[in-house]
């Protein structure tokens, strides 16, 4: 991967400017009066954010959303990795499951929600299932890619030294596919938050999404936007944390590519 050559100080300035421009555009749109009047301005949103931070209701909702999102994400990651390594390393399975996986990844899981709600009800189990189904595909597809790219010299080594299947899985297949797995896991972390909030909006299962709807119904648009802001912030924070972990874990990968 190419490192950017820009200095960190300049980069920070650029980012702050970008955010400032965004706020400016927002404020301009509000001022132009083309939008419905209930749309809150920048200052109102900031006030809403301040109000939200001290609200116990918010923290409870955030906790519920995070729990559902994390549970679905972790389950999907574990299942996706195990399934992906198996499929990607067995040529017969890879070929026969190809179409199925291409179909599954492009299937709109949110559209499946009514069925899942009918089966499981409007609760956190249902939320976890929908989040998990949405997160599964990126992890699965990336892991299959990773497992396919097995170096032939590594495969020969494993065969010659008669490495048992489970040890091979854990110490060869998993680490060699790890750069791809990490990408899939990171992508699906953002998806997890997104889908969890979406599910709560649609199904009224408890969490941030439900609070957003309630605030909208109460005409508290500033609060609704504040909640949205936090949902985005959490997703971004998780992705950043994962990137950090990935950089440490995959030191060998970057060295190897040079």
């Amino acid at each position: 991967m190419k490192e950017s050559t820009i200095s960190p100080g300049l980069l920070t300035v650029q980012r702050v400017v970008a955010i400032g421009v965004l706020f400016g555009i927002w404020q301009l749109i509000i001022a132009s009066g083309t939008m419905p009047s209930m749309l809150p301005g920048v200052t109102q949103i900031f006030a809403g954010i301040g109000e939200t931070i001290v609200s116990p209701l918010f923290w409870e909702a955030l906790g519920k959303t995070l729990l559902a999102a994390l549970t679905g994400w972790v389950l999907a990651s574990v299942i996706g990795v195990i399934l992906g390594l198996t499929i990607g390393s067995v040529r017969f399975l890879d070929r026969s499951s190809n179409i199925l996986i291409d179909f599954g990844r492009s299937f709109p899981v949110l559209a499946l929600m009514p069925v899942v709600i009918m089966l499981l009800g409007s609760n956190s189990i249902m939320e976890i299932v929908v989040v998990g189904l949405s997160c599964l595909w990126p992890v699965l597809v990336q892991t299959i890619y990773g497992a396919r790219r097995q170096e032939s010299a590594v495969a020969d080594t494993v065969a010659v030294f008669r490495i048992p299947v489970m040890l091979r899985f854990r110490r060869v297949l998993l680490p060699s596919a790890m750069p791809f797995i990490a990408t899939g896991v990171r992508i699906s972390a953002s998806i997890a938050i997104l889908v969890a909030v979406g599910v709560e909006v649609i199904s009224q299962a408890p969490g941030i999404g439900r609070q957003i709807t309630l605030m909208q119904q109460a005409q508290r648009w500033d609060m609704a936007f504040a909640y949205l802001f936090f949902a985005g912030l959490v997703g971004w924070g998780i992705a950043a944390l994962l990137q950090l972990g990935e950089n440490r874990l995959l030191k060998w990968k970057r060295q190897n590519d040079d």
Partner: protein
Amino acid sequence: MTTQTPTTEATQTAPLLMKVRGMSMSYGEGAQENKIIENLDLDVEFGQFISIVGPSGVGKTTLLRCLSGLLRPKAGTIEVSGTQISGPHPDLAVVFQDYSRSLMPWMTTRENVAFPLQGKGMGKTERNNLADENLAAVGLAGQGDKFPWEMSGGMQQRVAIARALAYNAKVLLMDEPFASVDAQTRFDLEDLVLDLQHKLGVTILLVTHDIDEALYLADKVVVIAEKPATVVDEIITDFGDTRDQLATKADPRFAEARARILVRLRKD
């Protein structure tokens, strides 16, 4: 190494460690069939250093992959310690041509060397100690915590050799192990391998396109040529146990043997 084997043939004077008879190998099927090796015989005695020399593309890697059990020959038999092999065998270890890729970049050198031992079910302390011992034997004492990509090509090759040694196989199969290092490193590694062979008594079968290397290292040089490849000559060298990069290569018998192999490889 003193090892006794079941005598499979009463007529055999020295018991054979490896015995290859009528081995043929081809890639592809039917009209697409590409014959690479035909009707090849090979005897490997205990403690012997055998070089197999042949031009590039003749089928040396193919032969070595068959001998190591990675490929199944189309015809013929390969026996190790008196039993026919049907796949990779615990008595055989391989040092690959593509050594840098055969080391796992996510493992330290110690873990790389210990990994096959873990596969054998050996405990952590024991296998790590063995790995350190073997790293020391190849001149890499105290380097166990480094990663392969922190090392030069020559050092990586030493790690691959240490891994094969630690596995405690009876035969080391080496595929052009020194082809991609510089000349000085190459001489050092050749002498290291000779030294290890004398100290540990392992049997080594090395494949190379380099006639000088084949002669310098081996007790017996097997020349393969033609298409499909077969054994066209065998030379028992007689340079003794202590060899020297300058003196041995200046020996008149060395020049004579080299000329004989060159003639063999030039015709056909």
